[in-house]
């Protein structure tokens, strides 16, 4: 499985990257793909079977999608976003 998380700030992505690395999950930060959002922020693409590493989404996470062959499947969206 592959997931992409978008964030309210660049540093949120950096922190999430560290979280994934602590959990041994492959992760890279990159610009948000255009097909996913009109925002030009930073996202984290990560692997593993659980879209929520650490058991709870950090407050900086705006949304999480699963990368599928056809595009993106919504997994999580922060309240009020």
């Amino acid at each position: 499985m592959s997931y992409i998380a978008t964030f309210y700030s660049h540093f949120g992505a950096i922190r999430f990257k560290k979280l994934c690395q602590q959990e041994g999950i492959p992760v890279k930060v990159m610009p948000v793909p255009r097909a996913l959002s009109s925002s030009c922020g930073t996202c984290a693409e990560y692997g593993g079977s659980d879209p929520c590493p650490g058991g709870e989404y950090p407050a900086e996470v705006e949304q999480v999608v699963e990368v599928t062959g056809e595009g993106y499947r919504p997994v999580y969206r922060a309240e009020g976003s």
Partner: protein
Amino acid sequence: MDLKKEKITIVIAGLIIGVIAAALVFFGNPVNMGFCIACFLRDTAGALGLHRAGAVQYIRPEIIGLVLGSFAMALAKKEFSARGGSAPLTRFVLGFFVMIGCLMFLGCPFRMILRLAGGDLNALLGLAGFVAGILVGVVFLNRGYSLGRTFKQPVLEGAAFPAVQVAMLVLLVAAPAFIFFSEAGAGPGALHAPILISLIAGLVVGALAQRTRLCMVGGIRDMALFRESKLLLGFVAIFASALVCNLILSAVTGQAYFTLGFEGQPVAHTDGLWNFLGMLLAGFGCVLLGGCPLRQLVLAGEGNSDSAVAVLGLIAGAAFAHNFGLASSGTGTTFAGRVAVIIGIAVVAVIACVNTFRKNA
């Protein structure tokens, strides 16, 4: 859309935008000023009487078009979303000082590229300062800088700024007596393409910028953060196509659309240090805002009320710059303007520090 397609799309958009920018000069805009978000917001502020510099007063249809083009494209693609609430007053202040920096240099990042494409080598100093300012901002981004999250808002909140642009268009066309327009020969404000051409140009560029997320700041920021060149390619494409168009127009018309050098450049001065520092302030402030002035207009068109507030800050900065003699001119910089840039750099640095290290404490 994969990354390769995104790159091709943004290069094509950049090439089109460069042609449009050069064409606007052919149709009447000041030389090297097919687009300049800072100058055009300044002109619009003057037209509304927020400052009384008679040389720079005109409601620029390009601004109206940029916002409405983005708005229309966002609606068509179901991407219009009213959102905001992320430190709006801080964004206002950042917008204010970004404008102070831009009017020290005499142009926004977009015009900086167009000045380079017109052979104005003073813009190289501006570019160096702009890159330096962005790199300083990136240091703060990597250490935790954030103005906080945005929240979904009522549709009216996001639609208000595009609606204001419609009102501006009515004022431009109706030209009531209380709106100020630079008189012929008074200065850059008197030089403009016909309204319909400027409006269509703005609409097209606004729509393209919305689709591609074109951003003069984002290009350099993403190269620094990720070694990702996509947004930068848009930048390069605008430069390349505007340069080619300027050379063709110079050859065909015999007029000076391209003049290589430092001296005698249109709406520019030769004070390298302050060209550098002005754009350092602009680059630093724009990174903290999350995008260049063009991007703020486009985001405001998509319904982002925080960006709309940043644009209001830009307008207020323009009004102050001309009311208090802060703006440069073709004859050079002013003492008050130099002091304002130093204050601006200090204020932006404080905003960066407070919103970075406070969170980590």
